[in-house]
């Protein structure tokens, strides 16, 4: 495929946004999934949300992205209260997310999946669509050029753009999901376990992609992840949850040294090293 002449045009990159979550509580029947969780993502930073299984990380994600209605607490995007904004409206405000279990449109090609990310920014109506003439065609062509330049080139997906996502390997599917989120022109990107189940090579590839996104697009990233090596390597800030509560927050080094965190992960108040050894034995 020939490179489009518009390649040199400056990409449209939205400014990074800060996310402020304050006192978020969420309850399912008698289970307190979240209990007064506060969390800040500074503009342009990479913030990680970690915690043992069932700590409430994905619940927090769902509450922030608007799938769950929190009982109390507020979610602010750049100071603007979005707690009661429906999930699909948050897309327009610049909140994009991926899912723990890949939620791509399996019947479509990589290109169409990524194009769908831009849905909320397009204007073609159904009558234009039937004709595919003038406005509709112009918009589709601009969209294609932009996506090729800003997303497909950037994440090196050009060799698979016309492949149906269902037949791609897991690591690439995760990357396509990231691409779709980027096509939304987010100001803050939320990634739910971006490297879960990946091998070392795929993990490194994804970690590099996340760093590149922050570097090149300058947007904020909030991620949930179990791969501690990756979290500690790329995060500016780490927030730890356990049983729905925040037990620690700070830089990776601070969190790693926090006794509560060690306790939460290894389940003992004694010598963490000893506890780990006991667990293995």
């Amino acid at each position: 495929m020939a490179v489009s002449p518009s390649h040199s045009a400056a990409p449209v990159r939205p400014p990074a946004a800060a996310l402020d979550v304050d006192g978020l509580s969420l309850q399912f029947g008698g289970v307190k999934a979240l209990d007064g969780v506060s969390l800040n993502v500074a503009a342009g930073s990479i913030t990680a949300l970690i915690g043992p299984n069932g700590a409430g990380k994905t619940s927090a994600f769902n509450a922030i992205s608007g799938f769950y209605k929190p009982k109390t607490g507020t979610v602010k995007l750049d100071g603007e209260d979005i707690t009661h904004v429906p999930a699909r409206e948050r897309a327009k405000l610049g909140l994009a997310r991926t899912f723990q279990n890949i939620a791509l449109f399996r019947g479509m090609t990589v290109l169409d999946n990524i194009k769908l990310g831009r849905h909320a920014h397009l204007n073609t109506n159904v009558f234009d669509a039937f004709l595919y003439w003038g406005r509709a065609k112009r918009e589709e062509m601009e969209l294609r050029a932009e996506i090729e330049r800003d997303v497909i080139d950037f994440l090196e997906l050009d060799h698979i753009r016309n492949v149906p996502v269902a037949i791609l390997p897991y690591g690439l599917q995760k990357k396509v999901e990231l691409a779709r989120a980027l096509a939304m022109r987010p100001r803050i990107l939320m990634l739910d376990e971006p490297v879960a189940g990946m091998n070392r090579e795929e993990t490194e590839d994804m970690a590099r992609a996340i760093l590149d996104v922050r570097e090149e697009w300058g947007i904020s990233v909030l991620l949930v992840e179990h791969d501690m090596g990756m979290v500690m390597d790329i995060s500016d800030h780490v927030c730890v949850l356990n049983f729905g509560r925040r037990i620690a927050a700070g830089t990776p080094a601070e969190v790693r040294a926090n006794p509560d965190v060690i306790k939460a992960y290894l389940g003992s108040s004694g010598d963490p090293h000893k506890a780990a050894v006991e667990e293995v034995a």
Partner: protein
Amino acid sequence: MRIATAKESYAADEGLFKTDTQRVWFGLLIAGLLVYPLGASNYWMFLAVLVMINIISTTGLNVLTGYTGQVSLGHAAFMAVGAYTVAFFDGRFGTPVLLNLVLAGTVAAGIGYLVGLPSLRIKGLYLAIATLAAAVILGFIFLNWTPVTGGLRGLNVPTARILGIEMATPDRLYWLVMPICVVMVLAAKNLFRTRVGRAFIAIRDRDISAEIIGISLLRYKLMSFAISSFYAGVAGGLWAYLFRVVTPESFPALASIFFLAAVIVGGAGTIIGGIFGAIFMTMVPEYLKLVATALVPWFPDASIYLAPVRNIIFGALIVGFLIFEPMGLAEVWRRVRRFFALWPFRT
């Protein structure tokens, strides 16, 4: 082997026809449609018109069921709405044919929009039953709203007339139905090259992600119902001009199954699949009838015995498709194209 198909612009890569081969074949198809009436008997003209009406209607159901993933068992009822609309306006006011057809589509689309409302809360089989219920309610209205629908006796439809030309017979009607069919199929194809069509597929494949990227499920599900019903309404209107009478019996619930089977046999979620499906479902029974007639010299009672056997063979063919070719005739077509695209290097 297909060669020299590299594209030099995004417009070329996203075109309706991507290669010259496709353009030539499409040109041949149109030429074929233009010369077909020269050699066809009245019987074959009738079949051609019927097939094209069914293609329009199947394409409509394909938008809803194949692309948006909302199963509907009420499609024939929307055709009936279109047919009654044409019968009512043409019979009562003598309005122009094209206006009647637009009205038929619009009224059907409006009712389809209402019938689509339950789809916001229910999915799958439950939605199918809800659409079936809507079809039953519509059937009740056709039967009992006598001042408008003519009740049990139905309505007679005047001859279609455009610019003073009477279209009483299939060979004249062909020139009304064929262009409408071509335009509507191409329009449906275009729909899926834009954000609207992509949103439909997104709802089918993963509605939760659709919502997160900013697609309003409410808006697009109802839009899909309306588009699907519009196609059904226009098809029903043309049907009325072909058969010239509309009664509550014209579009039984079984006809909805007919269109659903056409979508599945042809290949759900592909435009070409809707075309193949409609041709298959319309022509196979006719073909089996011809076979039965041809056997009469040897088995004088063939037509008597073969009538039920015909239904069995027809049913078996559909079941066979579901088992051996679940992606439908469109998948067979794709394989054929692939064979020639790679020939002679890989077969």
